[in-house]
Structure formats: structure tokens, C-alpha cells
């Protein structure tokens, strides 16, 4: 077994990995930037090392510095979390070269999967349905025209190394092809350092489905069910649930194929295969070779601790779970709590947390790194916590979620909690009529604005009552000499007047 694990990340996932280390009796080492020196992961870890002040490139993406800290702290392994260096093959290679273990797939697998065309080709070979499109990269207009004709418009041009909604151009008709191809190539070159692009059929308002899998170093792999992450804002997931809407048969057959793919790639550790679903057809999109933000929903319905499994696999242990042991129990939903203003195009917020109320109850989980008085920096991701709720079935979970979301309150920074309230109150969400363009389609911000006005009305009403009371009784409000509460008396009288 490993002894010491360096966590090359921050925020809630760093805290999550520390918890897994504690369970396995591993020493946890964390790193932090100047802005994060008061963050929870720094307080919780066994040892914490400063990365100094600077940009993300100079801190959490600084391979040299992180390796140096790992070596001086005698770390045996590095867990990259998600984001930052988690999918960087050069980092994984460097970690291994220094004699440490990278908690994730091998550098060569990361390299293959980072290339969208290559990963699509491998998936196709295994018999996993992929989105119709070019077989490889497209460089000339004549090639692009031919592909467009074959698969039909609209099409989408994607940068080979793009991601996060960037480096993509939707082309509605052949006339717009030339300029879009050129535009996408330029962006690909500028942002991803490689002008390679490929073409696919554009799938409008799809649903997002994904399959979690684990593979050990001994050629054993298992699939651990599916998740649906269709509720998104600007290509970022905000609500995820497990299981998805797929039938048991479909889920198992996709899961088996993904395990074959893992076997073929010589994949190790945790991974997620992402798919797009439209009108009964499902298409492979990509593999995320790391732990994902939404992993807790799978943990909630299977009881498997995915981060603990990651660390066990990294310790070269054989998977102790068999495919037949995996049972799904109930339904789980995760709400990403972001410090952002949904009414101002999701602008990231920052500030001091002046109040925090964390919900509780049966099967309610809140993973976070904020605490009262913590000053939340705006240099990083806006994710400040994840509320995960489990119930017997989807309806039950939605009811529980409503209660938990109402209990959850964060003061000091604007969050998207009210947005979640508005989403789950919509009948479309309740009936699971959800697609990746759910927010725009159902005008959720309008519902949200209405909610805000309801709250404001409650405050203004309270204020006006309080004001009129002050006018009536200039003397001390709370108590009078005979011990009765004048304020209450006043309120009673006033209410009666309102009803008359």
C-alpha cells in the first residue's frame, strides 16, 4: 500500500481526496497558492506546502514546483483530482520518471484519449456507436464539402484538442462551410496549439449520459452504472443524477463495451465514458480519464467509494468488487453550488462567507471547502460545494432536494442556489423532459427572477410593518414595564387590521 499521497489540486475535490486518504490511513500532502492559504484543504491535510503567489500556470499547473514538493515530502503517489493537471500526459510521465505513482491512467493512454479523433477511432473499432463524421482530420475545403454532403447539415467542426465548449463551429449550410472551417482552424491553432480539426454531424438539444468504470492494473475492469448530466449552463454541468434514463439492458451493454475499450487501451484507474443521446440513438463522445465532479451520485446509489478505489488501484491492489456485486439502490441528484449570479450571465462572484447553513437529514450530503468567515477567491473555478441527495426514487429525491436546497444558505456571496430551486420546481424537470439546452428552452431565468421578487416582497412587507410599528410606538418596543411584548401585541393588532 502507498504511504504518502500528494494531492495536486484545491477546493472540494482536495478535501474529498484527503477524506479517502484518512480512511486508508495514508498521509495526505497538499499544495496551495497564496490565495488559498486559508482554504480548508490546507487545514485538513497532514502537511501543506505553498506554491507561492502567481497565476494558475505559476501555481497549480507548475509541474516543476509540484514535483519538487512531492519529492521533498517523500510522497509515493500524486492524485491530480479533476481539472488542472489531471489529463496532462507530460505531468503523468514526469511523476513516473521520478519514481512516483500517478493516480490515473498511463501517460500513453492520456495522450491517446486527449486526441478526440484517435479516441473516437478506437471506440468505433470496439463497436461503440460514434457520431457520424470524418474518419480523421480534415484540412481542405473539398474534403469538408464531401463530408458535409455525406452526413447532412447542420454539421459541427471541432478542434482536435478542444474542450469546454471552445473550438467548435456549427455550420448550418454548405455556403457557410469555408469561413467556419478557416475560423475553427485559426482558433484551434491559437488556443490549443494545433490546427487539426474534424467534422461531425451536429446533434442539437441532446441529452448527456455517461458511464463510470474502474480498471485495475491486473486486467480487471468493471462498469458502475450511468449518470445523466443534461442540465447545463454554457456547456458546464450543474445538475447530475444517477441512474440515467437508459434501460437496464442498454446500460449493461454499453458498460460491457466500455470495459472492452478499457481492456483494449490497457486503461487503469477510474474513468468516465461520455455519450450524447438523441431520439433513441446514443453516440460516444469522449472518455474523461479522471475522477469527475459528479462521482458522488454513483457513490450514493452503489455504496462504492470511488476515490478510495482509485487509491487502492494505484497501490497495485486487485479490484475487490465484482461486476455481479454492483447493485443500484434508489436515485441520487447532485446540485453544483457555484458562486455565480444566474441573473447576470453567470458572472463569477467572490467575497467573505458571512453565513453558512448546511442542510442535513437522511441521505443528504454536502461536499465543500468553505466555512464561515472564509474569503472565497475568484482566481479559480466558481464551484463552492456540491449538494448530493438520495431518495428511493426520482420523485422522492426531488422532494428531499427541495427541502435540502431551502435549508442550504450561503451569505456573503451570490450563489446559484435559487436557480436550482427554480429548475426543480419546473414540471419539465419533474417529468424528466431535460436536454442540454434546458435552461434556455424553459426560460428558467424568468422563473428565477419571479422567485427573487417573491423573496423581495416578503422582505419589503416585513420592513413596512416594522416601520409602521416604529411610528406607532416611539418607546422601547421589546418589553414594557408589565412584561408583555408590545411588539407582538402590535403585530397581532396589525394583522387583524389587515384581515378586516
Amino acid at each position: 500500500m502507498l504511504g504518502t499521497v500528494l494531492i495536486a489540486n484545491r477546493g472540494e475535490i482536495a478535501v474529498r481526496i484527503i477524506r479517502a486518504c484518512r480512511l486508508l490511513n495514508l498521509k495526505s500532502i497538499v499544495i496551495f497558492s497564496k490565495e488559498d492559504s486559508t482554504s480548508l484543504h490546507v487545514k485538513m491535510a497532514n502537511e501543506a506546502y505553498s506554491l507561492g503567489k502567481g497565476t494558475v500556470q505559476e501555481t497549480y499547473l507548475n509541474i516543476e514546483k509540484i514535483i519538487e514538493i512531492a519529492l521533498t515530502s517523500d510522497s509515493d503517489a500524486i492524485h491530480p483530482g479533476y481539472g488542472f493537471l489531471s489529463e496532462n500526459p507530460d505531468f503523468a510521465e514526469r511523476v513516473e520518471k521520478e519514481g512516483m505513482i500517478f493516480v490515473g491512467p498511463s501517460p500513453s493512454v492520456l495522450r491517446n484519449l486527449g486526441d478526440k479523433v484517435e479516441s473516437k477511432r478506437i471506440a468505433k473499432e470496439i463497436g461503440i456507436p460514434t457520431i457520424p463524421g470524418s474518419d480523421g482530420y480534415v484540412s481542405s475545403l473539398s474534403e469538408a464539402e464531401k463530408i458535409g454532403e455525406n452526413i447532412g447539415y447542420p454539421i459541427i467542426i471541432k478542434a482536435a484538442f478542444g474542450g469546454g465548449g471552445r473550438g467548435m463551429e456549427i455550420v448550418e449550410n454548405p455556403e457557410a462551410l469555408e469561413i467556419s472551417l478557416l475560423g475553427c482552424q485559426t482558433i484551434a491553432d491559437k488556443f490549443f496549439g494545433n490546427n487539426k480539426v474534424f467534422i461531425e454531424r451536429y446533434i442539437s438539444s441532446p441529452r448527456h449520459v455517461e458511464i463510470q468504470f474502474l480498471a485495475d492494473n491486473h486486467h480487471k475492469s468493471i462498469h458502475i452504472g450511468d449518470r445523466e448530466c443534461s442540465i447545463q449552463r454554457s456547456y458546464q454541468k450543474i445538475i447530475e443524477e444517477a441512474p440515467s434514463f437508459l434501460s437496464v439492458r442498454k446500460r449493461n451493454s454499453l458498460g460491457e463495451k466500455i470495459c472492452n475499450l478499457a481492456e483494449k487501451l490497457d486503461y487503469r484507474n477510474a474513468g468516465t465514458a461520455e455519450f450524447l443521446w438523441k431520439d433513441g440513438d446514443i453516440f460516444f463522445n469522449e472518455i474523461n480519464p479522471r475522477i469527475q465532479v459528479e462521482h458522488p451520485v454513483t457513490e450514493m446509489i452503489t455504496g462504492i467509494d470511488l476515490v478510495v478505489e482509485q487509491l487502492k488501484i494505484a497501490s497495485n491492489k486487485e479490484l475487490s468488487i465484482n461486476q455481479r456485486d454492483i447493485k443500484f439502490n434508489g436515485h441520487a441528484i447532485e446540485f453544483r453550488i457555484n458562486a455565480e449570479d444566474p441573473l447576470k450571465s453567470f458572472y463569477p462572484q467572490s467575497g467573505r462567507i458571512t453565513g453558512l447553513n448546511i442542510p442535513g437529514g437522511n441521505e443528504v450530503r454536502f461536499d465543500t471547502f468553505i466555512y464561515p468567515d472564509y474569503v472565497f477567491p475568484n482566481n479559480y473555478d466558481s464551484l463552492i460545494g456540491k449538494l448530493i441527495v438520495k431518495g428511493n426514487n426520482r420523485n422522492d429525491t426531488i422532494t428531499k432536494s427541495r427541502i435540502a436546497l431551502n435549508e442550504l444558505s450561503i451569505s456573503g456571496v451570490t450563489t446559484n442556489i435559487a436557480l436550482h430551486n427554480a429548475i426543480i420546481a419546473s414540471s419539465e424537470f419533474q417529468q424528466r423532459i431535460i436536454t442540454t439546452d434546458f435552461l434556455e428552452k424553459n426560460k428558467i431565468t424568468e422563473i428565477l427572477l419571479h422567485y427573487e421578487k417573491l423573496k423581495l416582497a416578503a422582505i419589503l412587507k416585513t420592513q413596512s410593518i416594522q416601520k409602521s410599528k416604529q411610528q406607532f410606538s416611539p418607546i422601547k418596543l421589546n418589553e414594557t414595564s408589565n412584561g408583555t411584548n408590545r411588539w407582538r401585541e402590535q403585530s397581532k393588532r396589525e394583522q387583524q387590521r389587515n384581515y378586516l
Partner: protein
Amino acid sequence: MKKRVTYRDHEYIFEILPNGDLSIDGEIFSASVDQEINSVYKVTVNNHTFTVEVSSKDFTIDGENVDISIKPFIPKRSINNGSQEKKNISLKAPIPGKIAQILVKEGDIVGKNQELMILEAMKMRNRIFSPNKGKVKKICVKENTFVEQDQKLLEFENSPD
């Protein structure tokens, strides 16, 4: 009497109607106070019940602290005629990040709320809009460079008409 209220960085126009109902941005809400215990109010608005706590400086609604500021409402026209708005404005970066794209050049005449720049911070593309109709006087940053919070992005000259 109509008033302006700022609540969670957003401004609303409200009025308490003679029958006790509230009008917020033209939408009518009927609110009633059901209970009051030690300055904690149970307020029902259109069948939703909220818990509002009053302290000397702010309000807490369902556990969350909020600040409201109320100002008299003066119709827009008289603002323009009265106090003169600042002519030159410098737009600052609301958050640290990278300038992903600059969509205008110096000397451009732009409309109100026109996209001027895209500031990228951790995967999010944040759009910087023009505050008013006017002219881009000076662009103070370059594409693909990193900016600090409150760093000046561009100088803007208002021209309301």
C-alpha cells in the same frame, strides 16, 4: 409612491399599494405576516412562506443574510436632464483572468450593452459590455494577456444622444 430597491445587486422598482399588496417591476404580490416571534417574521407571499429575520442593519431570509437599499424613484428622463452623467468611464476587469478576445477597436462607436471584450476565467467566457452608447477611446489591454481584478480594460466616452 414608487421607490427603487437594490436587492442582491439587482435594482427593482416597487410600490406598496393602498390595499397592502406590493408591486415589484409591475408584478403584483400579496404578502401577509402570519407570525412574529422575537423579530423573526413568517411571511407568506403568493402561497410561499418565508422566514424573515430583522436585525438593526440587515435582513435574513430563509437563513441567508441580505442587504437592501431603498431610494426614491425618479423617472429616467429627469435624471438625464438633471445631474450630468460622467462623460468618460474606464471599464475595469471585474475578475482576474485572460483577455480572450477584443471585439472593438479604438475609435469605434458602439451601442448600449454591446459586447466589447471576452474575459476568460477558469473555462468561463465572461462578456464585457458597453455601459452606454458611446465611443471606445482607448483599449488598455492586449488579447491573450492576463489581467488582475480592477485592472483598467478600456476608456469609454459616453454619448447618450
